[in-house]
């Protein structure tokens, strides 16, 4: 079995998670990654969805942030104001997952508009929980497929703050959390450079070239001194992930 690029993105994200993590999970790749981790090497990982479900253990992936499955398998479910006040703002989440329509080289994200805010070319859904997930979680993992319309030189709108214009900007705003530390894409893994906070390719997924990665990014990408190859998906990772998706399809009657 060989992983598809999307599977590789999910698996790379799952590997970063451990039993002691408390994750604020979004729908899609983050949800798949977190549950893959839970079903493989991190059975005790704590998953939280913004709908209020604490320590949830879904057997199939939810299609929405508030599926009944999340509530049924949760330790308990709290009201949404409590979720944002006591749990997210309370500083009790170690890892927040984010994605977006667009990202820049300092891992700032846009999910609000393309074009001017008052007369947008494309009106995107907006920030939702993202602005405060980005500032209140211990660190942020981002999952996004590459492409030059997604990895852009300049964002038309900053919906959630990554590293601003470079290292030190978070601290200058009084943020004590780490912000984005890992960006998992379908082609590679990037990390902010320790000196500049600019996103830097640290590993290429099996079979992916530097040229392919650059072709998916509108700014000239930096590569780490020692770019490695992302370890290939194991048989176990792939089969657990595919089983999870199959169970999900069966449960929902639709693709997850």
């Amino acid at each position, binding site marked *: 079995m060989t992983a598809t690029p999307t599977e590789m993105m999910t698996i790379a994200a799952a590997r970063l998670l451990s039993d002691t993590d408390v994750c604020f999970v979004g*729908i*899609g790749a983050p949800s798949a990654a977190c549950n893959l981790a839970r079903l493989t090497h991190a059975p005790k990982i704590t998953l939280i969805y*913004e*709908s*209020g*479900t604490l320590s949830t253990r879904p057997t199939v992936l939810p*299609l*929405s*942030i*508030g*599926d*009944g499955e*999340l*509530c049924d398998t949760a330790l308990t*479910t709290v*009201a*949404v*104001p409590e*979720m*944002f*006040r006591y749990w*997210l*703002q309370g500083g009790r989440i170690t890892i927040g997952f984010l994605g977006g329509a667009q990202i820049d080289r300092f891992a700032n994200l846009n999910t*609000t508009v393309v074009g001017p*805010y*008052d007369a*947008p*070319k*494309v*009106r*995107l*859904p*907006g*920030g*939702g*929980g*993202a*602005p*405060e997930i980005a*500032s*209140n979680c211990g660190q942020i993992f981002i999952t996004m497929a590459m492409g030059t319309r997604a990895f852009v030189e300049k964002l038309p*709108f*900053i*919906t*959630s*703050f990554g590293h*601003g214009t470079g290292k030190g*900007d*978070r601290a200058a*705003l*009084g*943020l004590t959390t780490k912000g984005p530390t890992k960006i998992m894409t379908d082609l590679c893994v990037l990390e902010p450079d320790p000196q500049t906070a600019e996103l830097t390719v640290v590993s290429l997924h099996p079979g992916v070239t530097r040229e392919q990665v650059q072709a998916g990014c509108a700014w000239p990408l930096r590569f780490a001194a020692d770019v490695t190859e992302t370890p290939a998906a194991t048989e176990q990772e792939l089969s657990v992930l595919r089983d999870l998706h199959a169970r999900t399809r069966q449960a*929902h*009657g*639709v693709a997850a």
Partner: protein
Amino acid sequence: MAEFVSLAQGIEAVVSDGCSVAMEGFTHLIPHAAGHETIRQGKRRLTLIRMTPDLIYDQLIGTGCAEKLIFSWGGNPGVGSLHRFRDAVENGWPHKLEIEEHSHAAMANAYEAGAANLPFAAFRGYKGVDLPSVNPQIRSVTCPYSGEVLATVPAIRPDAAIIHALKADREGNVLLEGIVGVQKEAVLAAKRSLVTVEEIVDDFGPRNANAVILPSWAVTAIAHVPGGAYPSYAHGYYKRANDFYIAWDKIARERDTFLSWIKDNVLDKGPDVFARHALSTREAA
């Protein structure tokens, strides 16, 4: 004390042209039947308030009920865009829609402040982002002890709150359970409220001492509308109709398919059509 009414009476009683309405429900228990009734009654110039506008507001916006939208995430969850919302914002169809945009944290805090009868809420948010530059309602306050500057949001105090709940008892008390979202806060923050329910029972019976209950004297009106959350869901009654959320993308993409769907499924129908959703999926829930 809450009054028991029909859905049509309930919407007439709590929603008037030009008023502000919060129809809440966080994925779970979205009051879709109430949204349809609002469209049927042709309400106009509404300020619609909701964290996640979702299909219910796509329909209200597309039928021209809304003048303004206060929201924090406007998409079709897990599917993509809300096309009617986008058409209103991008092209002004059926007319221009004013928007007041916040984050989830801000909206959740704003409902909480409204329920607590406070004029604003302070929270740690919006650091380094662009929303405060386009929303003048995002301001700040300085902590009188630490000197820290916190973001603020005005309390949400809607004229009307509309929610869907699991059960009401004969006294008009309302039981919520599962993903309870911001519904209790929305009702307590509002001047008047309508609750549609799956079921009216004589008594809630044995329950957790800390069950989430809105007492009768905190609710204006209750209407019995089984299935009234469809295509959203009611925990223990019926499941979320994920296929309809997917189908909506196609229905709402074009103005004419949208309008013909509204005619066939909203204007030419009544609240009783929701009952079949409750029945047809009850066993699967």
